[in-house]
């Protein structure tokens, strides 16, 4: 008898997207073979496009249209899922296999209250008694860490924060007490403080309900805290697998080691080198007592925030979700009406936003994107000059001119982010505001973008305002840091001082979350 019983056994699974023109395409998953033991938490890591999500969706039976399992089988508790009738397969979903998706903002019906959203799950799975359903939902909301379940029950999804919504989704998945819970990047859109809460909650619930978990992530620190075993995927194959401790301390494959290095964003390994800052020079941007509010709200989101950015400086801005970081960025970029004064030495300010999917206009080519800043600034150039300028801008961000005629959808997330940076660079601004430029990228792309930003800073002397929830990055590349809390700056100073001896509550909380998530040794 085997020592462990496997709840899921994936046997030599291959998966491809055959078309009429190409009946035997390169498989997306190649000969995947693994098992998930009963009660364990198995992590699945790898860069975007490595096949992690495809593997999970094959187990859940939620493969996209056109995906065909060309070889192999998936057994769930002894039953072959690939040979199962669609009807039976659907019944498995929810009651036996639960799924939590990445984006908590789109997974709940916005027109239904939280209670109704959750109630429906029980109703579709045959629980007829209304009072009973309500009791179960309230109970589960309580288990998922809501202090006042009744209150949450009667709220709408848009009235909750990202972390709260993710907890509601966990409650929804746990309601049916599935034996296997698939978590597809459940924490990647959350900040560190919330990530810790969500991971702790998942851990607690899995323990309580004896659930087995397949945890997909590109965030190695989440995996480190949470998983018993880890598998590494690359190009549709499993390249490495081991217990979490072994894997992180002694990676066996070169690729895993590279992933770990990238995840750590180690400045020495990446060769990051920033410009030296002269604090006696006059600042490129001074903002004093900025207040701002949204149209429909009565209270200010920003309550008198002040900051200045010096030439050649990389200024870090940290704070938990909802503290007003993004609103501050909007006011500095002139996208929002505000009170207080903002003086900028340069008319042009560059901007890089968080989401590489929506940062480029899907209807236009890359060349159009690079020319648009020139057109907007009213710079008249001859055809030859334009071509030169665009090609050099592309080269500055490490891309070749062949991309000029492509549309954004033909590029990867990291490449799109590079184009966004090139668009800012082409007018040679003295300041670029980067709002969480790494958080939607996998660790390899993130470290490349980080390297690009520091190179630009060093070679061109461009100042950066870097907004991030990754304190590790701030520690490595920002000489000075600002901590925001509840709409104002609560602490400001040299990074080494602020992060080693935080004075404010907000900074302490952020540092605590980071040390839990990344471990003590990680911080140095």
């Amino acid at each position, binding site marked *: 008898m085997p020592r462990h019983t496997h709840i899921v056994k994936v046997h030599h699974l291959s998966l491809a997207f055959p*078309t009429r023109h190409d009946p035997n395409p390169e498989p997306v998953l190649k000969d995947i073979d693994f098992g998930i033991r009963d009660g364990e938490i198995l992590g699945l890591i790898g860069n975007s496009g490595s096949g992690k999500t495809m593997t999970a969706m094959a187990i859940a039976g939620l493969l996209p249209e056109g995906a065909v399992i060309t070889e192999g089988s998936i057994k769930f508790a002894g039953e072959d899922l690939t040979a199962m009738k669609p009807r039976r397969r659907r019944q498995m979903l929810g009651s036996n296999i639960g799924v939590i998706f990445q984006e908590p903002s789109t997974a709940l019906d916005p027109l239904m209250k939280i209670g109704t959203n959750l109630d429906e799950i029980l109703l579709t799975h045959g629980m007829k008694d209304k009072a009973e359903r309500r009791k179960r939902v309230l109970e589960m909301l309580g288990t998922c860490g809501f202090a006042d379940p009744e209150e949450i029950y009667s709220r709408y999804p848009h009235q909750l924060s990202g972390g709260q919504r993710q907890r509601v989704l966990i409650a929804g998945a746990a309601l049916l007490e599935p034996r296997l819970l698939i978590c597809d990047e459940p924490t990647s859109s959350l900040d560190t403080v919330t990530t810790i809460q969500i991971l702790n909650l998942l851990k607690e619930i899995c323990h309580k309900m004896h659930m087995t978990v397949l945890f997909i992530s590109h965030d190695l620190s989440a995996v480190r805290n949470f998983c018993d075993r880890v598998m590494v995927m690359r190009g549709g194959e499993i390249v490495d697998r081991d217990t979490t401790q072994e894997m992180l301390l002694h990676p066996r494959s070169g690729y895993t080691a590279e992933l770990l290095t990238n995840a750590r964003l180690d400045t020495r390994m990446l060769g990051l080198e920033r410009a030296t800052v002269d604090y006696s020079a006059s600042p490129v941007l001074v903002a004093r007592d900025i207040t701002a509010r949204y149209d429909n709200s009565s209270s200010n989101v920003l309550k008198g925030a002040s900051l200045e950015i010096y030439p050649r400086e990389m200024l870090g801005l940290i704070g938990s979700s909802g503290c007003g970081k993004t609103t501050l960025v909007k006011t500095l970029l*002139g996208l929002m009406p505000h009170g207080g004064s903002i003086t900028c030495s340069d008319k042009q300010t560059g901007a890089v936003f968080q989401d590489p999917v*929506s*940062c480029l206009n*899907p209807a236009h080519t890359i060349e159009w994107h690079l020319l*648009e800043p020139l057109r907007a600034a009213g710079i008249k150039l001859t055809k030859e000059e334009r071509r030169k300028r665009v090609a050099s801008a592309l080269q500055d961000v490490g891309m070749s001119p062949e991309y000029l005629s492509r549309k954004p959808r033909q590029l990867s997330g990291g490449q799109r982010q590079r184009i966004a940076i090139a668009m800012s660079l082409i007018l040679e601004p003295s300041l670029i505001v980067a709002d969480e430029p790494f958080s939607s990228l996998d660790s390899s792309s993130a470290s490349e973008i980080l390297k690009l930003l520091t190179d630009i800073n060093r070679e061109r002397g461009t100042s950066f305002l870097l907004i991030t929830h990754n304190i590790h990055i701030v520690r490595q590349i920002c000489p000075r840091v600002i901590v925001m809390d509840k709409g104002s700056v609560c602490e400001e100073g040299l990074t080494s001082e602020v992060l080693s001896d935080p004075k404010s509550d907000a900074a302490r909380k952020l540092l605590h979350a980071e040390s839990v998530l990344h471990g003590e040794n990680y911080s140095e």
Partner: protein
Amino acid sequence: MQSKASSFRARTFFITGAVFLGIVLLAFVMSLICSPYDPNATSAREILLPPSGAHLFGTDNFGRDVFSRILDASKYTIFISIAGVAIALFLGVLSGLPAGYFGGFPDRVIMLFNNSIMCFPGILLALVAVAVFGPSMFNVVWALGLVFAPTFARVCRAGAMELKTRDFIMHAKVMRVKPVRIMYSHILPNLMPQLLPATVIGLANMTLFESGMSYLGLGVQPPDASFGKMLADCKAYVLTAPWLVIFPSLMLIFYILGLYFLSEGIRVSYSGRSDS
């Protein structure tokens, strides 16, 4: 990336639509270069002749050649639908984009106008306009253009409202791109997946409206022909000379069906394409 099934469906729609529309367009081209008879020439000796070698689709109650008249009618039908939709599209985009992009007061004023037009039945409004300004083809064109404009305005407004919060529009604002350019160069090209099928469907609906109005005598004026006008003229001879009904109806059906298939093809090919 386009999935296999959806690209096959799109192709089927496009081919079917092209065949139907091809018939009507062929008639249009022939009306310009080689109409066998003068479409308006009457002949007392050749009244209500059934289809034959000399008169391919027979003759009508004035002895006019139905085939020549159908060729001629396709010209007017195509002209009215395209000109009407062009006016509607122009007005719709011009009012819808600023309404959605700026929001607030401009939005309320612009949409007040659009909604006031929308709250009357379209054909009634067009009939009133033509009754007041006199029945003529140009009055029909602008009246229908005005009636159809709010549909396009709504499509543009909804699209602009959704797109203006996206990062690439924020980026454009940071680059100090002027609002007019943001609307027409940044937002409008992204609305094509909604606007193109709406335009093609608009052409079909415009044709139906025009036929209805011509049938009531308020559209194309005699002696010119349109499909609706031809149907109206032969009311009395439906049983004795069915060719007078069949051929204009078939052309109308081909044109409308062709347009519907085309719009469906456009819609499917856009929805099969993913941006991520």
